[in-house]
């Protein structure tokens, strides 16, 4: 990472931490959900760079959420960090298994197959009475290394947990993007034949990306489950996946930070539109997406890069 990037990332993190102490509760809970969803978007960006669009991230998102609810209920685990880890890992496990199938498909077939898999989970959950059917399950309030906060305190504690998890994910994923396996995303998108001839296995590279994006989506789902205190089958419905793709287009695949900025922008626009124009909020979101595609085809993240270049251009 360039120094200026590190400083920018560091100050963004610091600003987010300070915000946790000063902002009103409703904003904190909005940001908690937005940053947790940002993890799912980050996972989509990992695949997007290799030219793959998944319309089924809700599968892993829902897995992560249900894992938290069930492990809390049956296993008696209440520690938030442990629950989030287990939620992420169970989604990554699912991604590893379905990855053997998905890694063989590209483009629209990949998108639709991933959508189909998430709808199978939706169907199973709706049909299973012991998992709460369409009502879903409640998630017991988590503890933090023995500390058991309530109400506002819980809200703030979860916010900080989300911040820590997101910062860790952002650091690890930007290291991954700089690694050979991560940087080969664009070559894989451009010319798979050449990548194979250079001695790399394309299907293994893609399988790795699937597991990483499953892990991120599951972690996001686990955090959201803790924040809302409830999970239901809609977490796996295709519109949920569609929303994540929507945010990814809004954010752009240019940088790791874009995932979180894009997600925060989306949640803010949605909550604003929902209160101001209750009947028209979907139309407003649609217009935002349209404007993004028309005027910022590289997403909101490209605004940051433009600032960056502006600065570089001025330097002697």
């Amino acid at each position, binding site marked *: 990472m360039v120094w200026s990037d590190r400083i920018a990332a560091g100050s963004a993190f610091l600003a987010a931490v300070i915000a946790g102490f000063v902002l009103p509760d409703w904003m904190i809970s909005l940001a908690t959900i937005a940053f947790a969803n940002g993890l799912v978007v980050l996972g989509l960006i990992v695949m997007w760079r290799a030219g793959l669009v998944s319309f089924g991230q809700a599968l892993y998102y829902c897995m992560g959420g249900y894992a938290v609810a069930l492990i809390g209920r049956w296993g008696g685990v209440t520690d938030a960090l442990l629950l989030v880890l287990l939620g992420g890992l169970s989604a990554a496990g699912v991604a590893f298994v379905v990855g053997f199938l998905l890694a063989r498909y590209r483009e629209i077939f990949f998108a639709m197959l991933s959508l189909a898999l998430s709808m199978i989970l939706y169907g199973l959950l709706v049909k299973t009475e012991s998992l709460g059917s369409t009502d879903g399950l409640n998630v017991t309030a988590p503890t933090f290394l023995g500390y058991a906060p309530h109400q506002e305190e819980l809200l703030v504690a979860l916010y900080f947990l989300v911040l820590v998890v997101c910062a860790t994910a952002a650091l690890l994923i930007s290291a991954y993007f*700089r690694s050979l396996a991560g940087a080969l995303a664009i070559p894989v998108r*451009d010319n798979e034949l*050449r990548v194979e*001839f*250079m001695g790399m296995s394309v299907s293994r590279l893609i399988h790795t990306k699937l597991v990483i994006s499953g892990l991120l989506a599951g972690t996001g789902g686990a955090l959201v489950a803790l924040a809302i205190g409830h999970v239901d089958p809609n977490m796996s419905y295709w519109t949920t996946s569609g929303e994540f793709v929507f945010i990814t287009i809004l954010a752009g695949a240019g940088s790791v930070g874009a995932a979180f900025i894009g997600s925060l922008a989306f949640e803010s626009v949605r909550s604003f539109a929902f209160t101001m124009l209750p009947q028209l909020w979907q139309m407003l979101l649609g217009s935002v997406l349209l404007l993004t595609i028309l005027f910022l085809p590289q997403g909101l993240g490209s605004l940051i890069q433009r600032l960056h270049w502006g600065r570089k251009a001025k330097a002697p």
Partner: protein
Amino acid sequence: MNSPILSVRNLGKRFGLLFAARDITVSIPVQQTVGVIGANGAGKTTFINMITGHLRPTNGTIHFEGRDITGLPCRQIKGMGISRSFQVAQIFPSLTVFENMCTAAAIGRAPHTFIGHVCTPLRSRESVVEAETLLELFQIAPYRDRLAATLPQGIRKLLDIGMALAGSPRLLLLDEPTSGISIEEKFSLMQVIMSALNSRKCTVLFVEHDMDIIEGFAERVLAFYDGTVIADGTPAATLADPRVQTLISGPKVRCAVGAAAHV
């Protein structure tokens, strides 16, 4: 000339009823530069595809440095030290020239394990140095920061071959390195390629349609016709072979404007 680096015995490939290659037996010593000629559809690319593991031979064996590599997947064969370039340059259009080369250099140096690929940075100091060196060697350093999609044909070819040379292969197979290049430019392009490959002490096999280039650069020539080798020897001997003249080189020489003046 010492022990063979590549030795191919009774190699054959059948597509349905068509024999794209049959009964090819060739042995190539270390550091020889071998030219391959033959009309369109004679089986030259098929021959290369079998050695690099892109196609599985129907019969016969391939030994590289004494080891049997018949039917191994192309990834593994690349790892053992055989690399290739393509009839149509295979590069990554949305990366810059430098990024293309750096990717090839990084793959060439990375340990061949899954963890190795996740832990190796793309731009390690060594792979950046290797990429810069190869750009200089192939004289494409001035194009360093151009997107590969926007390159002229000759530069694409040089980049493709430069990428094949990253990771120091010991045998390099070039499929028509000068295809799509104008007659005037062919010779100088080939000169750049060959001096780069010779400086790396690579054994080279290249496919070429232009007999002047063959005479200028090959130490030995294999003539392919209908899937098999009909002549094998020094350029002078092979090109003088009456079967080669009637089946392969004859019409080509008459076509080539420059060559016609000499005949």
